[in-house]
């Protein structure tokens, strides 16, 4: 058992292996992805691991395995839980036999997400216990306890780290032992069939259990109260606990401190210890005011009078991430002590802005550019989706008019075309998103006689989250050869007849295909097929003949390729970034860009 530097997500994956997990399913999403990947990487050989096509599918498969008595883990990001919420709500009532831990990573900021939703709130809504780790070390320890709690009460349990826990590395000693379990197997019983009568009984039982857990979990090592000086206390949880501890140590302050590691069901008795010692409480947490509202409710229930500072009165920020410095300023003011001095610096010079962009050579750039060229002078709307290609919204491409959630490009395009029949409505969907929720949305388009162009950006991988295999890649996460589900065949199967398969780097063919599809009445589809640059090494690079370059900068203005660099009045190509896609060769009006000899 040697100490190693381990990422929070990897620690959670290893924690699941140590706890004897037998089935792990999930759908990739930052910041959760590395959990399932770690289980696959360290798989002793007897754990079934899969990337499912979406989160609902993943949760249902895990539910079946847990019905049969296996320990299971399901992984997703917070918005993935929205997709899985249908099975989740019912599963809360039905319950499980084998332990089930649902790993849902939240993303305060948000750093790479659509929403700042709080899975602790989702846990309370679905009535499930929620563990909220404050460090990678604690996340590792929590996995085994979450499984034990799940099995003791026959309920799924949510483990909810946030980005800073998921992606932080800590020094952790991982035991080499594993809990050994033999699943009982599926035992037929009416309890597995959800019916109104059963749901009523289950609802009653769940509420009673959660009332009991408010006391039982107060004894958990993850919910702690430490007394301090004065009558002003602090309540916190998750990574904010780490920030508060650091801020207090810098400020040299010792205050009554409540740490909530299991926010639902709320550890009432532990919180009462804090309330007994204080007149005023500052609540430090990210996203929703979960601990804060529980404290308000507890004060009402116990008929106590305390001042609560937090999100409700505007003492702490209502959105975004917490930081040590942000909380330190708030705590210093709250306690009436001086803030530590910071280095005084002069105003810095203007800094270059570095927004994320499509990589040099990315085939999505060519796809967007072809559609843009083909639709010049025509009224068109471009409904985008979730993936690297959301970056198609950036200047100068400016080819993503909407982005809502997974699969919604296809359906938003349908909705707009119902109101604006004179507009050509495009959707852009990546291959993984196509299988996630795109397919039923396209079936809807065909069934309801929509008039739209569905563009499928097939780069043969799930690029955004780090190249996970999907039904289009012919491989699975266990490294086995898997069925490669042909996108064109799937489109034909749901009744689309006007389908073009084009390499977007062949711009002439791509533009023609778009023009044809735009004029076609009904649903037409274009599959732009070219591999993600991360999947191959470039064979030839582009080069600028500076004698020929007239410095018109059309290539810079039109493409926004990071491989094209402004060099005085002219342009040069960064050979470290160029992938030789050749898109710029076709754009140069004086043929100054060619492949290197």
């Amino acid at each position, binding site marked *: 058992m040697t100490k190693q530097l381990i990422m929070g997500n990897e620690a959670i994956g290893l924690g699941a292996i140590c706890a004897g997990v037998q089935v792990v399913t999930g759908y990739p999403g930052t910041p959760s992805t590395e959990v399932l990947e770690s289980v696959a990487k360290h798989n002793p050989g007897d754990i079934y691991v899969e990337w499912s096509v979406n989160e609902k599918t993943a949760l249902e498969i895990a539910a079946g395995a847990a019905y049969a008595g296996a320990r299971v883990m399901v992984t997703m990001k917070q918005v993935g839980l929205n997709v899985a919420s249908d099975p989740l709500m019912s599963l809360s009532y039905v319950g499980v036999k084998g332990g089930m831990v649902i790993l849902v990573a939240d993303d305060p900021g948000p750093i790479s997400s659509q929403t700042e939703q709080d899975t602790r709130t989702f846990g309370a809504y679905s009535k499930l216990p929620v563990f909220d780790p404050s*460090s990678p070390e604690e996340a590792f320890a929590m996995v085994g306890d979450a499984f034990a709690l799940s099995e003791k009460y026959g309920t799924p349990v949510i483990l909810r780290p946030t980005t800073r*826990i998921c992606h*932080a*590395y800590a020094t952790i000693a991982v035991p080499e032992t594993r809990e050994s379990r033999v699943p009982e197997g599926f035992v037929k019983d009416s309890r597995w069939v959800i019916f109104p009568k059963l749901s009523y009984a289950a609802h009653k039982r769940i509420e009673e259990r959660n009332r009991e857990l408010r006391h039982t979990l107060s004894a958990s090592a993850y919910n702690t109260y430490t007394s301090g000086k004065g009558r002003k206390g602090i309540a916190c949880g998750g990574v904010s606990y780490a*920030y508060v501890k650091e801020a207090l140590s810098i400020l040299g302050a010792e205050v009554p401190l409540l740490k909530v590691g299991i926010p639902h069901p709320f550890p009432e008795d532990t919180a009462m210890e804090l309330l007994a010692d204080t007149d005023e409480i500052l609540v430090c947490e990210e996203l929703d005011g979960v601990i804060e509202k529980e404290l308000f409710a507890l004060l009402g229930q116990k008929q106590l009078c305390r001042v609560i500072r937090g999100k409700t009165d505007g003492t702490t920020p209502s959105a975004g991430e917490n930081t040590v*410095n942000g909380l330190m300023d708030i705590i210093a003011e709250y306690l009436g002590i001086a803030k530590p001095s910071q280095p005084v610096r002069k105003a810095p*010079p203007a800094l270059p802005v*570095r927004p*994320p962009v499509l990589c040099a050579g990315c085939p999505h750039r060519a796809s967007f550019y072809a559609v843009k060229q083909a639709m010049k002078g025509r009224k068109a709307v471009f409904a985008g989706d979730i993936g690297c290609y959301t970056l198609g919204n950036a200047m100068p491409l400016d080819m993503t008019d909407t982005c809502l959630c997974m699969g919604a490009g296809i359906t938003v395009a349908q909705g707009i075309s119902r109101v604006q029949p004179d507009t050509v409505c495009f959707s852009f969907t990546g291959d993984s998103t196509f299988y996630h929720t795109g397919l039923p949305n396209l079936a809807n388009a065909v069934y309801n006689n929509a008039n739209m162009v569905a563009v499928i950006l097939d780069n043969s991988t799930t690029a955004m989250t780090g190249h996970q295999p999907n039904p289009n890649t012919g491989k699975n996460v266990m490294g086995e050869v898997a069925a490669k589900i042909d996108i064109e065949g799937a489109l034909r199967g749901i009744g689309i007849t006007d389908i073009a398969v084009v390499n977007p780097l062949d711009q002439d063919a791509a533009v023609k295909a778009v023009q044809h599809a735009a004029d076609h009445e009904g649903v037409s589809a274009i599959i732009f097929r070219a591999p993600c640059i991360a999947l191959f090494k470039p064979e030839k690079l582009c080069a600028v003949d500076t004698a020929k370059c007239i410095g018109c900068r059309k290539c810079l203005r039109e493409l926004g390729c990071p491989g094209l660099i*402004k060099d005085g009045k002219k342009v040069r190509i960064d050979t470290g970034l160029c992938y030789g896609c050749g898109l710029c060769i076709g754009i140069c009006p004086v043929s100054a860009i060619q492949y290197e000899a």
Partner: protein
Amino acid sequence: MLNILLCGVGGQGTVLASKILAKSAIRQGKTAHTAETIGMAQRGGSVTSHVRIGEAAYSPLIPLGRADVLIAFEPAEAVRNLPYLKDGGTAIVSNTAVKPVTDALSTTDYSGDAMFAYLRDENIRLIEVDGEELIRICGSAKVLNMALLGAAAASGEMNITTDDLCEIIRTTLPEKFHTMNLQAVELGARSVR
């Protein structure tokens, strides 16, 4: 407690450098924490790696004004992250400026010179590393991280010596990369006067 902030542009090798620092600390029996930028901002975006060595670290990220050492792979990123460095702290900065796509589209030019002019005027110990020249000598941009670690080790502000670095290279990298990386450490260390 030693706080080291590494910063640069996605793809420059900051992550590997932070891992080397953390792993060498663990080998010395110390506790290490790191945290870095992952995800959408990775390619071509500003990236940071926070390395915290010692037991007293609670937060995964270094608070502002608390970094002992700043290792910058890019001059503008050094300026952007300077608020993390404590007064009198050590900044090791490479002159390898990376122009963003926004620069290609704008009418102004970004160069590292204005950044160094600003840094030279601040209350810090500035160690300038000629990364451009070093890459030319070694023949690969991949050695920049070893060169900067070499400079950081030679500064005496770290828990790691140039000998430790050479040992890590010999024990963890494939043999064909040894000469190039050992040379980078040596050249980087020479930046410290």
